[in-house]
Every structure is written in C-alpha cells, then in structure tokens.
C-alpha cells in the first residue's frame, strides 16, 4: 500500500487559510479589547450609560464612565486595538476575495465546497448528521473530500457569516454610512449594527470551536500536515 503524495489542498487554499486564520485571531482579540471600553449593548440608533441596555457583559471596563460594579478601571488599549482591527479587516477581506474569486474560477468551490445534488437529500443529510452525533472518527476517504455537513458549514461561513460581519462592521462607520445610509438603516440603527457585529462574532467563534474539535477528532497532525504542506499520508486504495 503506497502512501500518496498527491496534493490535498492547493497552495492558494493553504496560504489564504492561514492568512485569514491569523487575521481572524487579531480581529477577535482587538474586537474584544474594544468591547472592554464599553461592555454594554443596545438596540436601535443610540445607546449610552443613560439609556436602556439590551444586555451587558459582566466584566470591568477600561473607562471610568461605565458603571460596572467593579471598583477598578482596566487600562485603555483602544488605540492600537482599533488600528490593528481595521488593518486585519483589510487583510481578511482582500485575502477572502482572492480565495473566493479564484476558488469560483478554478473549480475549487465546485469540486470541494458545493455539495453534490445527491448529498443534500434528507436521507444523506440525516446519515451525515448521525455520524457526527456519534463523534465517529471519519473514514479515510474524508481525508480527501469534505462531507456534506462540512461543506454546508463552510458555505454558511463564507457566504453568510463573513458578509454579515463585514456589513455590520461597515454599518458602524459614520463615514461609510454617510455614503451608504441604507447599510445601517435596514439593520435598525447604528447600535443594532454594533450588537449584531458582536453576535456574529460569537457565531464565528462557535464555528471555530467546532472546526477545531473536528480536526482533533479526525487526527490533528494529519489534518495540520494537509493544510500546511498540502499532502495527506493516507493509503489511496481505500478511497
């Protein structure tokens, strides 16, 4: 049984994956850092410590202005957090556009991400779901191809969650919405956009947790090797 050296992930997929992973991490850390300066969320156009709150995060704040119940104020980190947040957003958006653009063009999405017609039948979806619920270690063929739930999850992340987090982010920019007021108006207001941005962050984090869990279940080193070197050490015969 010869080990294959056939490439699993193309160089572009691997490069864009890791660039976006780093950018996402930077966005997450700096985003949470910015939240620390005002850990309260609102709905509608405006919100401040004098207005009704939708929910608040029970953490100390980095501003004296916010009544948190804690007797101390965290250090202000917003300057570099905002600089890095927006720079990482550019890196993520530009890299993501390259990935989606090339992926749609060169057949990556058609081959690897869009589910086959037979895969989206209720029966096969149920079968895949049951297999996931049993935490069954994936078969060898899954080293070579994404299963249907995985494909659907990636599609939701790429074509729904990322567009939504970019949109809700831009909807908070006073300059951007001066040119495109509908971007914030249809979300119900600037504070609604901020709250939705926060919610979509946690949906993306949930995806990341499941993604990592699945990688550990499938075999951490083999999947890491596939995404770094592009190769999979699996016998081809069993495919």
């Amino acid at each position, binding site marked *: 049984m010869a080990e294959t050296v056939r490439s699993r992930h193309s160089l572009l997929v691997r490069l864009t994956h890791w660039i976006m992973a780093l950018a996402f991490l930077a966005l997450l850390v700096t985003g949470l850092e910015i939240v620390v300066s005002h850990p309260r969320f609102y709905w509608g156009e405006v919100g401040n410590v004098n207005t009704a709150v939708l929910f608040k995060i029970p953490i100390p704040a980095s501003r004296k202005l916010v009544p948190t119940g804690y007797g101390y104020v965290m250090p202000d980190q917003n*300057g570099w957090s905002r600089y890095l947040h927006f720079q990482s957003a550019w890196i993520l958006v530009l890299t993501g556009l390259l990935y989606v653009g090339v992926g749609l063009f060169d057949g990556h999405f058609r081959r690897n991400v869009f589910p086959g017609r037979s895969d989206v039948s209720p029966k096969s979806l149920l079968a895949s779901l049951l297999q996931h619920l049993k935490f069954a270690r994936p078969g060898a063929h899954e080293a070579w191809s994404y299963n249907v739930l995985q494909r659907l999850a990636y599609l939701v992340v790429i074509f729904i969650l990322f567009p939504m987090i970019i949109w809700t982010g831009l909807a908070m920019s006073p300059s951007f919405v001066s040119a495109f007021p509908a971007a914030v108006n249809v979300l119900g207001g*600037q504070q609604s956009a901020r709250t939705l941005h926060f919610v979509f962050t946690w949906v993306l984090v949930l995806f990341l947790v499941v993604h990592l869990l699945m990688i550990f279940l499938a075999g951490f080193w083999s999947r890491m090797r596939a995404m770094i070197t592009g190769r999979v050490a699996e016998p081809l015969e069993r495919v």
Partner: protein
Amino acid sequence: MSTLSRRKLITAGVAAAAGATGLAVAAKLAGRYGLIPPDSGGVYGPGETLTYAVQRLLTRHSMAREFSRSQISAKPLMNEVDPPSDEFKRLQEGRFADWRVAVDGMVAQPRSFTLAELKSYPQRSHITMIQCEEGWSYIAEWIGAPLSHVLEVAGALPQARYVVYRSIQPDWWESIDMADALHPQTLLAYGMNGDEIPVGFGGPLRLRVTRQVGYKSVKYITRITVTDSLKQFGKGLGSASPEAGYAWYAGI
C-alpha cells in the same frame, strides 16, 4: 515536485514587475490626490492608508445621516472632561463674551473671531449622531457657523490642504483635510439642542465634524490654523491622537 520552467519564471517576473510598478503608481497618485493620512508610517500604515483613501474616494461629498427632532436623545451622555483651567473659569465668569478663536496660517487675513461675530454669520444646524470610538452614542442638534464660511471670511488660500484646530486644553488638538473642513455639516458650533452648548459638551465652542467619531469633534476651540502640511505640528503625525496611539483619520 515540478521544476520551474522558463516560461513560468518569465511570467512570474513580469507579474512581479507589473505589481511593483502598479504599487508605485498607486502611491504616487494617492499622494497627489491627498489619499495618504499623516500617520501612514509604521506598522499600521497600510491599513490606515487603505481606509482613508477608500473612504475619501467614496465619501468626499456625502452627508452624515440627519435625524428628526423626535430622535434627539433625551439624556445625552456627557463624557469626562479635564477640570477647567483658571483662564477658562475667568472667561466663563464673563459669560464667554471675551472668548476668541484665532484663525491663522495660510489665510489672507489672520484674525480672531468672538462668539458674537460667529453668531452673526449664516447659521446652520443639523441633528446628527455623535459616536464615541468606545461604542456609545447620542443624537443631538448642533447649531453654529459653517467652518467653510469662517475660512472664507479669513481668506483661506487655495494651496490649503489641512485645518489644524486647538482647544483651550493644550493636550487636545486635531486636524482634518479640506474635504471635511469645507464640508457643509462641519460647524464651529455654539449651540446644542436649541440652547448654548453646556460646558460639559464643549461649550462655548466646539468644532463638530459629523463623519468621524467623537474625538475629532474637539471641545473649547481657541485656534484654527490653515496649512498645506502637517509636518511642523507636534510630532508631524497630524494631531494629538496618533501621538497617543489613536488613528488620525476616524471615519471608521
């Protein structure tokens, strides 16, 4: 592994050269059309430059959203302000009759204006949102003289590219480009919600910049300097904000 063919090498070389040339041309054009912010050096320079350049191209003449009177926040939030100086207290005792804002730099007639003079100019008001970079916000009506009118009275020269503005509090000074300085919503505001601006909100005089977050709307304005370069102000980064680690351009 496939070996690199000559054709691939040539293609890669041409692509790299085209990319480098493209970047150089883009940088030159960006410089000429004022699309590079003064804090473009350093590790966050590329992101800042992209944000500023793209937003300037998209929003040069756009208007910040205006709201209806019923949307004015019943309880706007007064941010923390430093304790007033003795000079401020003296002016406050005189009900700010002696408050003056100097306009100098690249203007035909450097001069100063009293609040009464500013109030004699055509009045503009708007109900807009002020949002802090921290995340909170409120909506208020702002009343004042358009900065563009004051610059016209002083005779700002055509080579002007930026307007630097300073507070009576020496730590607070900012600058904006001419797109914001001449923008119809940019006001030297002396009124708020139908009354004078309370001191906590920047009274007697606040420069209201509607398309950037709150820290660009500096309180207690005493001096406005028109210039073609920000290099000679402070550390040359454009304003006090980058010196404290915050971005000069705050439209996002």
